[in-house]
C-alpha cells in the first residue's frame, strides 16, 4: 500500500477520471440542444455530509464547486442503496439549487452496507414550465412564475423508478420528452459513478477510500489556507452595481467587506441592496453559496495550478449576508437570471481582494454575457423560428502582468460563438460586421477590447431578445491608474437619420432592412498607461487598437514613421507625469456622477434603515428615498445624524401612505 500522501494523489486522479467520465456520459446521452451546446450541466462526487470532494476540470459549467448538499440530504428520512433523489428547489436545499431550470439528481453509494459517498449531477433544463418558454423571464417577480418546484424527493427508490412523481414533473413542462431524455442521461452518469467507485473500493478497500476522501478534503483546506495566509491580514471593502433598468432607474449595489485573518476569509455583504422585484435575486440563505464564493475559487485555482479541486478549499471562507437583500432574498422571489448578479458578486469580491493581493487579480472585465436571439415568422410552418445569433461577452480586464484577452471574459469563457457563415445559412439576416472594437482601455496592461456584431434583418415580424446585458451604464473598473473599460451599446440603423441608441435589448421588433449594431463592453486596464512599454503601444497602433494621438496623449509615446521616438517619448512622459494617476480604482464618470447624487454613506444608511421593514417592501421604499435624496442636495449635505432622522421620517411617511392606500382599497 503506497504512503498516505501518494495514495491521496492516486485517489484524486481516479476520482477525477470518474467525475469527468460522468460529464461525458451526460454530454453524449442528454437530449436538449442547450445542454450539448453550452455544456450547462455538471457532475461531482460528494462526502456523506454533502461536500464536493471531487469536481471535473475539463467538462461542465465549472462554477458549482461550492455547492453544499447537506440540507438536501437532510430532507430525506431514510437513504438506501439504489435511491436517486431529484430536486430543483432553492428553498428546501438552502440554495444548492439557485434557479428552477437546474434539475439536480444525486445517488447515495453504499458499499458493504455503508454510505461511502454521493454521486451528483445536474442539467439546465430548457423548460420547467412557468411564464415563458425556457422558464426564465427577467421580469418575473415570484418563483411561481418560473415553473415547477421539486423539493428533494426520491425519483428512484431502491432501484425502482417513481413513475407517479415522474408523471407530475413531465406534466408541468413544455418539453417533457426532452426533459426525460436529459434525466435518463443523468441516471446513466450516476450509475457509471457507482460502478467506478465500486472498482476503487474493491482495489483499495472502503476504509482507505473513506480516509482518502477525508484526507483530500483536508489537503484542499490546507492548500487553500496556505495561499490565503500569504495575503496580508486586514479588511478590504468594495462595491459594484448591476443595472436592473427594467424595474428601477437606480443601480443595485453589491457591497462587500472582505476580512482576512490568518488564512481565514470572511465575506460580509452588509450594505448590499434589497432584493428585487425581478429575476436577478440570488438565493443563498445566508450560506457560502457557490456563486458567492466563485471569485475566491478562481483566485485560489489561479494561485495554485495543482490545487485539489474540492470544497475543502472553501472551509476557510465564511460569509455574512443579511436577509432580505439581493443575495439573501426572502423565499419564493424570482431567481431566473441570478447569473448576472453572480458575475457582479465576483467583480465585487475580487475588487476587495485585489487590494490585498494586487499582483494576482485582474481589473474588471465585461462581466456579462448576452445571448442574442433572433426569431421570425416562418412562412412555411406559420410558427416562430428562433436562432441564436451570437453570445456577446466583451473583453477581459487588464492583468497585473499582461493585457486582457480581447473579446472574451472569464464570466462566460466556456461558451462558443457561432460562425457567421452558419448564422447566414440559418437565419434571414446578413451580418455586416463581427469584429473587435478598434479600441481598448488604456493601462500599463490594456483591457481586452469589446466585440461588435452588426446585422441587417431581412424577414418581416422579426424579434430580437438578449437577456443578460449589463455594463451598459457603468463601466468595468480600472486598476492602479488605468482607464476603465468601455460600455455596451445597442444602435438601431446606425449612421442613418433614424439612428437610435436603445440601450439594453428587452424585446426589439425589427422591420425588414433594419440594421442592429450591438457592442459588448470592453475590459478595463491595469496600471498607469505611462508605464506601458512603448513597443507594446507601437504594436497596438499597428494593430489598430490605439491611434497615434492617443499614444501621445494617454501613453506619452511619440511615434513617427512607424517607430517609437524615444527622446520625444521621454519628454512627453515627463510632462504627463506632472499629472500622475495613482488612483487604486478608476470607475469612470458615470459612476462618479451617480455617487455624488447617492454617496456610499447614504446608500449604507438607506440599506441599514430598510432592514427594519418587510423585505418585499424594500425596493419600493428604497426607490422613493433615493428619488427624494437625489432631488434634495441640502439633505445630503447635513450632518449624519440629521440625514438619518430625515430619512427615517421619509420612510415612515412612505409606509403610512402605503398603509392608508391599502386601507382605502
Amino acid at each position, binding site marked *: 500500500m*503506497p*504512503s498516505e*500522501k*501518494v495514495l491521496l*494523489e*492516486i*485517489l484524486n*486522479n*481516479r476520482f477525477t*477520471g470518474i467525475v*469527468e*467520465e460522468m460529464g*461525458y456520459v451526460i454530454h*453524449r*446521452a442528454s437530449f436538449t*440542444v442547450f445542454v*450539448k*451546446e453550452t455544456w450547462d450541466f455538471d457532475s461531482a462526487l460528494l462526502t456523506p455530509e454533502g461536500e464536493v470532494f471531487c469536481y471535473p*476540470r475539463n467538462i461542465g459549467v*465549472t462554477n458549482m464547486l461550492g455547492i453544499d448538499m447537506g440540507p438536501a440530504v437532510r430532507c430525506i428520512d431514510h437513504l438506501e442503496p439504489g435511491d436517486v433523489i431529484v430536486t430543483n428547489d432553492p428553498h428546501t436545499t438552502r440554495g444548492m439549487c439557485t434557479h428552477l431550470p437546474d434539475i439536480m439528481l444525486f445517488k447515495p453509494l453504499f458499499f458493504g452496507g455503508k454510505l461511502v459517498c454521493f454521486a451528483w449531477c445536474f442539467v439546465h433544463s430548457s423548460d420547467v414550465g412557468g411564464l415563458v418558454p425556457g422558464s426564465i423571464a427577467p421580469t418575473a417577480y415570484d418563483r411561481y412564475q418560473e415553473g415547477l418546484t421539486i423539493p428533494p424527493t426520491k425519483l428512484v427508490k431502491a432501484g425502482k423508478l417513481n413513475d407517479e412523481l415522474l408523471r407530475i414533473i413531465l406534466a408541468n413542462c413544455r418539453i417533457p420528452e426532452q426533459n426525460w*431524455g436529459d434525466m*435518463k*442521461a443523468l441516471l*446513466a452518469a450516476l450509475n457509471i459513478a457507482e460502478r*467506478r467507485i465500486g472498482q476503487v473500493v474493491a482495489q483499495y478497500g472502503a476504509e482507505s477510500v473513506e480516509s482518502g476522501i477525508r484526507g483530500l478534503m483536508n*489537503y484542499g483546506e490546507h*492548500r487553500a489556507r*496556505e495561499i490565503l495566509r500569504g495575503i496580508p491580514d486586514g479588511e478590504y471593502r468594495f462595491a459594484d452595481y448591476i443595472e436592473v433598468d427594467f424595474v428601477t432607474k437606480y443601480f443595485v449595489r453589491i457591497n462587500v467587506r472582505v476580512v482576512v485573518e490568518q488564512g481565514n476569509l470572511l465575506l460580509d455583504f452588509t450594505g448590499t441592496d434589497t432584493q428585487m422585484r425581478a429575476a436577478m435575486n440570488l438565493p443563498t440563505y445566508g450560506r457560502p453559496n457557490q456563486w458567492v464564493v466563485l471569485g475566491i475559487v*478562481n483566485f485560489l*485555482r*489561479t494561485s*495554485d495550478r495543482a490545487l485539489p479541486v474540492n470544497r475543502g478549499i472553501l472551509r476557510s471562507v465564511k460569509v455574512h449576508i443579511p436577509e432580505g437583500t439581493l443575495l439573501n432574498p426572502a423565499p419564493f422571489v424570482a431567481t431566473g437570471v441570478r447569473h448576472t448578479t453572480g458575475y457582479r458578486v465576483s467583480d465585487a469580491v475580487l475588487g476587495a481582494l485585489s487590494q490585498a493581493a494586487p499582483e494576482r487579480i*485582474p481589473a474588471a472585465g465585461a462581466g456579462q454575457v448576452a445571448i442574442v436571439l433572433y426569431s421570425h415568422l416562418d412562412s412555411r410552418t406559420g410558427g416562430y423560428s428562433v436562432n441564436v445569433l451570437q453570445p456577446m461577452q466583451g473583453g477581459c480586464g487588464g*492583468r497585473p502582468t*499582461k493585457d486582457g*484577452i*480581447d*473579446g*472574451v471574459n472569464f464570466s462566460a*469563457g*466556456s*461558451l*462558443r*460563438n*457561432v*460562425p*457567421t*457563415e*452558419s448564422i447566414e*445559412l440559418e437565419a434571414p439576416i446578413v451580418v*455586416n*460586421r*463581427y*469584429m*473587435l472594437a478598434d479600441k481598448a482601455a488604456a493601462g500599463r496592461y490594456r483591457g481586452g477590447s469589446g466585440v461588435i456584431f452588426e446585422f441587417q434583418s431581412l424577414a418581416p415580424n422579426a424579434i430580437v431578445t438578449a437577456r443578460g446585458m449589463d455594463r451598459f451604464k457603468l463601466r468595468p473598473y480600472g486598476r492602479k491608474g488605468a482607464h476603465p473599460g468601455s460600455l455596451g451599446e445597442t444602435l438601431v440603423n446606425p449612421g442613418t437619420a433614424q439612428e437610435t441608441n436603445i440601450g439594453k435589448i428587452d424585446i426589439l421588433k425589427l422591420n425588414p432592412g433594419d440594421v442592429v449594431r450591438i457592442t459588448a463592453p470592453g475590459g478595463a486596464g491595469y496600471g498607469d498607461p505611462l508605464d506601458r512599454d512603448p513597443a507594446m503601444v507601437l*504594436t497596438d497602433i*499597428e*494593430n*489598430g*487598437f490605439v491611434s497615434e494621438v492617443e499614444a501621445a496623449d494617454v501613453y506619452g509615446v511619440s511615434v513617427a514613421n512607424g517607430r517609437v521616438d524615444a527622446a520625444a517619448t521621454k519628454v512627453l512622459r515627463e510632462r504627463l507625469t506632472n499629472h500622475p494617476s495613482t488612483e487604486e480604482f478608476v470607475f469612470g464618470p458615470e459612476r462618479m456622477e451617480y455617487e455624488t447624487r447617492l454617496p456610499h454613506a447614504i446608500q449604507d444608511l438607506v440599506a441599514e434603515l430598510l432592514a427594519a421593514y418587510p423585505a418585499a417592501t424594500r425596493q419600493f421604499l428604497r426607490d422613493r428615498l433615493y428619488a427624494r435624496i437625489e432631488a434634495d442636495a441640502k439633505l445630503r449635505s447635513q450632518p449624519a445624524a440629521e440625514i438619518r432622522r430625515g430619512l427615517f421620517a421619509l420612510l415612515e411617511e412612505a409606509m403610512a401612505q402605503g398603509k392608508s392606500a391599502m386601507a382605502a382599497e
Partner: protein
Amino acid sequence: MPSYRMGIDIGGTFTDFSLLEEGTGRIRVLKTPSNPAEPEKAVFDGISRIFSEYAVRPDEIRYFIHGTTLAVNTVIQRSGAKTAFLVTKGFRDILNIGRHRIPDVFNFFTELPRPLVPRSLVFEIPERCSATGRIVRPVDREAVRAAAADMLAKGVQAIAVCFLHSYRNDENEQAARALLEADVPGLYVSLSSEIWPQMREYERGLVAVMNAHVGQKMKTYFSGLAKGVRGLGIGAHILSTKSNGGVMHVHEAGERPVDTLLSGPAAGVIGASFVGAAIGLRNLVTFDMGGTSADVAVIEGEPRYSTENTVGDFPVIMPAIDVTSIGAGGGSIAWTDSNGVLKVGPMSAGAKPGPACYGLGGIQATVTDAYVCLGIVDPKRFLGGAIDIKPELAEKSVAAIGKILGLDALESSESILRVATSQMYAALVPLLARKGISYDDFALLPFGGAGPTHGFLLAREVGIRRVVVPLHPGVLCAAGSLAADIRRDFIRTIHTTMQSDTESSVVTTMRNGLEALSREGRAWLDLQGMEFLDQRVSWSADIRYLGQSFDLTVSLDAGVLADATGAVLRRRFNEVYEQVYGYKDEAAPLEILDVRATAVGVTLKPKIESVAMRGDGKRGEATPGRRRVFLDGRYWDAQVYDRDALPSGARFKGPAIVEQYDTTTLIPHGFAVTVDRFGNLIGEAQDAI
C-alpha cells in the same frame, strides 16, 4: 533480386528507419540522431548506412515513404513565412476572435493562442458572396492592389485568402489570387476554397493560413529531399505520410503541407491497426508513450477519425486520425507540492537534459529514472545501449523525492509510476466515455519507446485484460507508413434541409455533389501514376437534426441514395445517431451540411514476417538471465527474455521483462504472455485485475 520498402520517420530526437524485405516480410530497424537544422541530412546519412550495413542496392528500393514533423513544428514555433490574410470587409478579427472559448477559465493569467497573422497584416477587402453562393459584390480590385502594395512594403512572404461563403463559390477568392499574382508575383498563396472548402470561416481560414505559413518552407524541403533521394539512386515513388493515415506524393505535399500536420501520430496508429488486422483483433486502444507524452487512439476495425484535432493551440478541421494525449512520458518530471503530495509532469526533461540517469545535467527524477531504480530497465541495454544510463544518478534523483515523502528510493520510484498511471486513468477513462466506448472487449496496444514498459501497468489500472506488444514497438511509425494507402479527402458544403415529407431534391443534390467529388477523387488517383490493388471512393455526409449544431458523419453507399424519397437515408442517420447518443428523433427534419468523399488507392500490403519456431519453445530458451524487480511493494525475481530470440509459441508468466533494441517490456505478475506467430507478445490477465 530482393526488393525492399523503406520507411523513414523524422522525430525531434531520432530519425527512425525501417527496411522491409518484401519477399520475407522481415523488418530491420535503425535509429539515428535527428538533425533539426538540416533534417534531410540525417535522412541521406541513414540511407547510406542502410545500404552499406545491410548490403541493399538503391534499385532494390521499390517503395519510399517519409514522415516529418517539420510542418507541425513550424506552426508551433511560428517559424514559417511572414503571412498576410485577406478577409471580407467587416471580419478583420476572424483569427483573433476564433471560436471564443477561453482555454482555461480557472486561470486569470491564461492566454489565447497568438494568431499566426497579426491584426496589422489582415486586410479587409470589400467583396461579398451570399449564403446561397451568389456574388453580391465582386472583389474591390483597388483594395486588393492597395493591400498588395502594403504587403510588399511590410515584407510579407505568403498570403492566405478566406472570403465569406467561398466554400460555395470561389470566384472572388480566385479573382483576388489573380490580382495578387500580378502585383506580388512569386508569393505563396493559399485559398481557403481550394485547401478545404467547408463552411465555417474561422476553421477554413485557419487551414489556409497554416498552409501559407508553412508552404514555402515545406515546398523547398520536399523538393530538396526528392532531389537527394534521387541522387542516391533510388527511383521509387517518393511518398509523404498524411494526417489522415494515408500517403501522397511529395510534390503534392509541397502544395498542401497542411495535410501533413498530424501525420506523425497517425502513422503509428496505422501501423497498430495493421498489426491488429494481421492477428484478427478489431478493437484496440493504442498507447504511444515517448519521452514527453503518452498518446492514445481507438481502432475499431479501422482507426477512428476526428475533425476536431488540434495543432499547438489551433483547431484543424480536416479529417485526421484521432489521437489524444493522456499524460506523462518517460521524461516527465516527478515533484512534490508544498504539502508533500507527489505529482508527475506536466514538465518534462525532454531529450535534453533528459532524465537524471542520462547524466546530461538533469537532476530531477523522471518516470524513466523510476524504471531504472525499480530494475525494470537494464542500464546497459537501454535503447540498445545507445544511451549510457547511470543508475546511481537515477537513484540520487529519486532519493531526493523520497526524502520528502518519507519513503526509500524503491518505494518512491514505485509511487512515481503509480501516480503517473493514475493520471493516465484520469484522462483515458473519460476520453473513452466521450467516444462512447465501453472498453470491455478492447485490447491495449502499446508502442513507442516507453509504451511497452508502461502498457501493462495502465491496462491493469483501467481494467483492460489484454495487451498486445508488436514486434517493433519503437519504430511503429516508420513501419506503419509502409502499410499506408494513397488517400485524399474531399468535401463540399451543400447545406440543405430535409423535412419529414419526401424530398427527392435533397437526395439528388447530395448524389450530384458526391458524384462530382468522386470524379475529382478518381482523377486525383489517376494522377498518381501508381499501380493499385484496388481503387475506391467512399462517401459520407455530415448530418444533424434541424436546429442542432453538432453533426455526425454518416457513411453512405449508393444504396442509401438510390432511394429518392430519402427514407433510407433518414433511417441510416437515425441508426447512427441512436448508436452514438442513445436515442433518436424520427420526426425531426434533417439538415445535411456537407458531403464528403475519400479516394483511396489501395497499395500492396507488406507481408509480415512470421517468427519461426526456434528451438523447442521452452521457457528459458531465450534467456539472458533473471533480475530482481521491485513492484507492488515487494521484490520479484523476474525472468528476463531477449525479444530477438523469443520463438513463436513461447509462453511465460509475469513478472517478466522482455528486452529489445528499441524498448523494454514489463509484464507484471497476474499476466500470462504468449508469443504469436508474428512475434507479438499477447498478454492476458489471468484473473480479476
